[in-house]
């Protein structure tokens, strides 16, 4: 009993929780706590109607703390903090208890045990809230300047859109020319735009803008600071180091086409090329395809080279590269247009021409392409015999019978792999996903944001995408950066470390433990103590166990709160 007046809301999540956890029992157990003066069960706590009724309850019963037992805090912390604020409560007197991802979904086989765990989790949430303090957000200024890394189609488009919003852009490109991969490709699906023309148009518009600075042969080498005010250093072509101050960073570093290992699907044999190589050849020629001066009369395409590999130890390429099926189907119609008599055989695993790109597949079928399905366990074999290429594949539509094709050209439809840019990853401190691409916070809810506030990942730096999707993510990051920078300030969570000056004797252990360089040594009367730079602090808490004097703690997660949560979790459930 602390004398607080707390409210508890238990969410059913439309069955996601209530199918596996007895929510009524959880509510009843929560209500037994001396501090809890209001408790209710809601079908969907996040719905407008439910939020409205909780707000009413907070006002009527004059609650000074609220616990919502629903889904992951990742999903709805912001929702319910805003709800608490609307009800006149300090948003940090609200606690989210994860009753879905960490309870009902994890224990679908045992309702009684899941319910018991649910009771313990809610008790811990109540214990934490009972000791909560009202906290104020920290308001810091933001600079209307951005850094865009990579001048490919996504980076160029992001730069233009930021410039449109009146935000200055420093556009940094590692190569000696802008345009990335798209520049080298000819006609693109779905609407036959020409890659080079697309890039030339974008580059022309970018160079005409006064508020876009393009740096070629340059790299980002240092980054410090925080959202709204990063200090970055660019190493330019001549080795000069250019310091810049920017409010947000857009990472558009793109992908690398997969390079097959020698011998993989016949890679290295004369006449075996990859999809990007074929695209480059087509972009460079106006007439029918030739190989070593001879006309190409038949082509065999092998799909999924380098993509969708079995999940063995160390294999990162288990993902689908998304663009290849559509690109190859489209390419086949371009090839037919150059030579209507050509024979094209597509050896595929699954045709994933998703959405409206299915029309490309149909067009390829109608324009003379033949599709043969092979299985993952039984891939096509490509050899050179008697001076010609031989492709052997088992056709599923002929009950696995071996089909022998002698094409003039074999095209390996290679997927996308992440760029090898470990140095940049180290500078940015943005996490990498299991596939090796930059990782977003949430693929659907926060697709271009990273755990580093103010750093956005767009285009194929984040994962395989086609040109349209890359541009869409580029523009999404512009909306995010625009909303952040044009307001002129950003409110940061006050869940940061704080030093008790009466206890601290300055040993420096917290400074060593902090990965963000957020702790400074300052004078305090006649002695030295630690001080937290709240803007740099991420509230991670590495400093807390390092302190022998227990002089440092994270607001919202104080030692007292954590201890009382552990006690509540350990208490027996009747």
């Amino acid at each position, binding site marked *: 009993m602390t004398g607080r007046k707390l409210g508890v809301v238990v969410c059913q999540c439309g069955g996601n929780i209530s199918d596996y956890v007895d929510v009524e029992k959880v509510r009843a157990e929560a209500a037994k706590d001396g501090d809890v003066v209001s408790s209710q069960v809601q079908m969907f706590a996040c719905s407008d109607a439910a939020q409205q009724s909780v707000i009413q309850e907070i006002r009527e019963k004059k609650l000074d703390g609220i616990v919502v037992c629903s889904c992951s805090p990742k999903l709805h912390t912001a929702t319910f903090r805003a709800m608490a604020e609307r009800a006149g409560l300090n948003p940090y007197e609200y606690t989210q208890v994860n009753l879905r991802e960490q309870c009902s979904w994890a224990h679908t086989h045992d309702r009684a045990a899941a319910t018991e765990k649910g009771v313990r989790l809610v008790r811990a949430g109540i214990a934490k809230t009972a000791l909560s303090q009202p906290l104020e957000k920290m308001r810091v200024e933001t600079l209307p300047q951005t850094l865009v890394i990579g001048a490919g189609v996504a980076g160029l488009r992001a730069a233009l859109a930021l410039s449109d919003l009146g935000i200055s852009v420093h556009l940094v490109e590692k190569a000696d020319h802008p345009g990335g991969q798209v520049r080298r490709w000819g006609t693109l699906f779905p609407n036959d735009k020409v890659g080079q023309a697309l890039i030339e148009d974008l580059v022309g518009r970018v160079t005409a803008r006064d508020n876009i600075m393009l740096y070629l042969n340059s790299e980002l080498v240092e980054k410090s600071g925080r959202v709204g005010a990063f200090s970055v250093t660019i190493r330019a072509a001549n080795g000069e180091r250019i310091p810049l101050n920017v409010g947000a960073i857009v990472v558009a570093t793109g992908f690398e086409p997969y390079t097959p290992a020698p011998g993989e699907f016949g890679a290295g044999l004369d006449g075996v090329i990859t999809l990007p190589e074929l695209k480059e050849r087509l972009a460079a020629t106006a007439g029918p395809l030739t190989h070593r001066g001879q006309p190409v009369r038949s082509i065999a395409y092998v799909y999924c080279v380098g993509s969708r590999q079995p999940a063995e130890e160390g294999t990162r390429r288990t993902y689908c590269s998304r663009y290849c099926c559509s690109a190859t189907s489209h390419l086949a119609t371009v090839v037919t247009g150059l030579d209507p008599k050509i024979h094209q055989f597509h050896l595929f695993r699954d045709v994933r021409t998703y959405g409206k790109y299915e029309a490309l597949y149909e067009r390829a079928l109608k324009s003379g392409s033949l599709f043969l399905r092979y299985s993952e366990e039984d891939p096509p074999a490509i050899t050179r015999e008697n001076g010609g290429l031989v492709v052997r594949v088992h*056709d599923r*539509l002929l009950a696995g019978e071996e089909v*022998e094709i002698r094409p003039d050209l074999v095209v390996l439809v290679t997927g996308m792999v992440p760029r090898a840019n470990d140095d940049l990853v180290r500078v940015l401190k943005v996490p990498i996903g299991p596939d090796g691409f930059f990782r977003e916070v949430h693929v659907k809810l926060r697709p271009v944001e990273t755990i580093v506030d103010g750093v956005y990942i767009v285009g194929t730096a984040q994962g395989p995408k086609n040109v349209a999707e890359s541009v869409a993510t580029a523009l999404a990051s512009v909306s995010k950066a625009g909303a952040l920078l044009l307001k002129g300030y950003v409110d940061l969570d006050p869940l940061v470390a704080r030093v008790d000056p009466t206890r601290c004797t300055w040993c420096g252990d917290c400074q060593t433990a902090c990965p963000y360089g957020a702790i400074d040594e300052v004078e305090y009367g006649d002695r030295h103590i630690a001080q937290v730079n709240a803007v740099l602090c991420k509230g991670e808490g590495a400093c807390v166990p390092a302190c022998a004097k227990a002089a440092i703690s994270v607001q919202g997660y104080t030692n007292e709160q954590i201890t009382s949560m552990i006690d509540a979790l350990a208490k027996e459930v009747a």
Partner: protein
Amino acid sequence: MKVDTGFLDALKLGGEFDARLCINCGTCTALCPLGLEILPRRLFRHALLGDRERVLGETDAIFSCLLCRLCEANCPAGVHIAENVRALRAVLNQGVQGLAEA
């Protein structure tokens, strides 16, 4: 089997043979009033892959077809089955029966 692109070219010349849209569902085979088992999905697959021997071996079936179009009317992929059979007959007439083009 070996893909014979020369046979594929001959098929194109013989008429508008095109069965690429076939999804191999078997509706045609199930509906055939003559119960021609080979017709058309398997036969067409052989033809599409340029398997000259296999197609020539089915001469009887190809000429038994009534061209009633029951299969074609019900084909979910919209393959012009009867036209394709006629194209195959044209190729057989030229190449196998030794009949001169009219």
